[in-house]
């Protein structure tokens, strides 16, 4: 039971966005992917979601190549929150969340309504339910979209479910960034495999079980955040001068100086 890439690479127009990468993700854990802009993080996530086919190698869910999965069956097993959203038609927030249930709908209308309301509430967006999506702010839209992908894989499936998040914290204020990752960790504790692209190393240290570091299309480090995210790696990958700090409560932090 896993989601894994086997020597999967991706090239577009002769440019290699991701070199041959083999990674294995386990359900029930929160995996973070970090790396500089253009390192191939979103590419890897798209390969894992089956949105893009690897140029070489393969991606498999439960040992079965993603190519062999029917779209509807895959939709019940994994959801992806993209980085950008381009919905411009005037759906209400609740209708947007309900769209996620296209291939999971087996319940009565009132149960479905309750599921939508519950998903919105868990993302702190209950009060947005009746508002028109195009009129929401960037952060509000991000929360509604998160609720949509949560609603998509809310029902138990015949195998572990996967939640793929591409920079879920991008448009969120500080409080919602933490709320979002607490929620992601809760879902992982219920057996869902969560894979999130994150930029803030302190969020990774605080919430992730595992971290994969990508640089220039290559996996350069993988392991527990405390073992991987140190001053040497920050200098090597980001060119930043950083200090690791351990507080009395046992938490670890990375402080980045103003001059880099």
């Amino acid at each position, binding site marked *: 039971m896993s989601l894994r890439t086997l020597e999967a690479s991706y090239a577009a127009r002769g440019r290699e966005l991701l070199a041959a990468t083999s990674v294995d993700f386990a359900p029930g854990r929160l995996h973070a992917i970090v790396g500089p802009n253009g390192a191939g993080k979103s590419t890897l996530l798209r390969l894992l979601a089956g*949105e893009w086919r690897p140029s070489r190698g393969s991606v498999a869910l439960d040992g079965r190549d993603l190519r062999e999965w029917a779209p509807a069956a895959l*939709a019940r097993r994994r959801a992806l929150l993209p980085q950008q*959203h381009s919905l411009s*038609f005037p759906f209400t927030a609740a209708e947007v969340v309900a769209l996620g249930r296209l291939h999971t709908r087996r319940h009565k209308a009132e149960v479905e309504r309750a599921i939508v309301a519950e998903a919105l509430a868990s993302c702190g967006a209950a009060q947005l339910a009746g508002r028109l999506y195009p009129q929401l702010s960037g952060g509000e839209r991000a929360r509604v979209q998160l609720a949509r992908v949560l609603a998509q894989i809310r029902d138990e499936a015949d195998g572990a479910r996967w939640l793929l998040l591409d920079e879920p914290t991008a448009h969120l204020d500080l409080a919602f960034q933490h709320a979002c990752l607490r929620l992601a960790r809760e879902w992982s504790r219920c057996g869902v495999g969560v894979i999130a692209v994150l930029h803030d190393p302190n969020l990774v240290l605080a919430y992730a079980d595992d971290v994969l570091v990508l640089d220039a299309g290559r996996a350069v480090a993988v392991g527990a955040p405390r073992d991987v995210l140190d001053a040497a790696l920050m200098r090597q990958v980001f060119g930043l001068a950083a200090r690791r700090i351990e507080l009395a409560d046992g938490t670890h932090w990375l402080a980045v100086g103003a001059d880099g």
Partner: protein
Amino acid sequence: MNRPTSLALVGGTLGAAVLASLAWALLTGPLAIDAAQVAAALTGAANRLGAAQHTVLFDLRLPRALAALTIGGALAVAGCTFQAVLRNPLADPSFIGVSGGAAVSAAACLAGLHLVPSLTLPPQLLIALGALLGGLGAAVLVLRIARLDGDTQPITLLLAGLAVNAFAAGLLGLIAYGASDPTLRAITLWLFGSLGRAGWTELAVAMPLMVVASLLLWRQAASLNALLLGEAEAAHIGVDVARLKRGCIALAVVCTALSVALAGVIGFIGLMVPHMLRLLVGPDHRALLPLSFLGGAALLGAADNVARLALQPAEVPVGIVCALLGAPFFLGLLLRWRRSPELA
């Protein structure tokens, strides 16, 4: 909810409007036939119509009214579908070149008919087939041109449609230039859009197909909703996007091309009706598609009545009435869109 209008109210109003425009079409015209006579004739009760009245009612007004309702509905459904598949609220079958391609191809078939002396197919069927092929060809061409990196560019789409339409108009002019008198009249009809030629034979070919295509599109409503999120997002939710797009575009082309074969190029119906209904009931295609059919039927039915009656005894092509209504609407839409693109 932000939407005060109930579906039942909108549906009921549009249904009543369709019936009203049908009654209006049957009861008005140069020859007087009153409501009691029409009701009696339609229900098969005692025939109180004279021979001329009978012909006018059953061979002229009824098929023409049914054609107006079906074509209006099919065009609105086609517009709504193109807007969803292309995720562009400005897509109208006549803007993106589909109608133009269908018109040229149909005209070419008509002009070429006398060159084939022993024809086994009825000409109406041949013209409909020609329109289908032309519409499909234009759709494929325009969509290919407008597609970049897997995304359809709204501006390129409208410009490519413009170019195809200009080319189509040129070809139509060329065919008209070399055509004999009856062909010329028919080609003028395709240029302006008129329901004057719709008879039972044409209707028997096109109407069932347009209704079936509209119903099949309705069946895809939930997937079309998902497509509005974006093609990648729809795929993640479990929609087979390539298949959905291919199927829906083909069905929308069927609706458009058969309308053109019957009545020529009638613009703006596919733009105005879905747009106004989206403001009333929202973008959910499960409601929007059937309501668009009703709204398009009522609008084109009413427009054709105006076209028949405005300048009696002469008749204005209904395409001109629609253009006079639709062009200002489109400009208003553009102004609104310029200010807040996300609400158009």
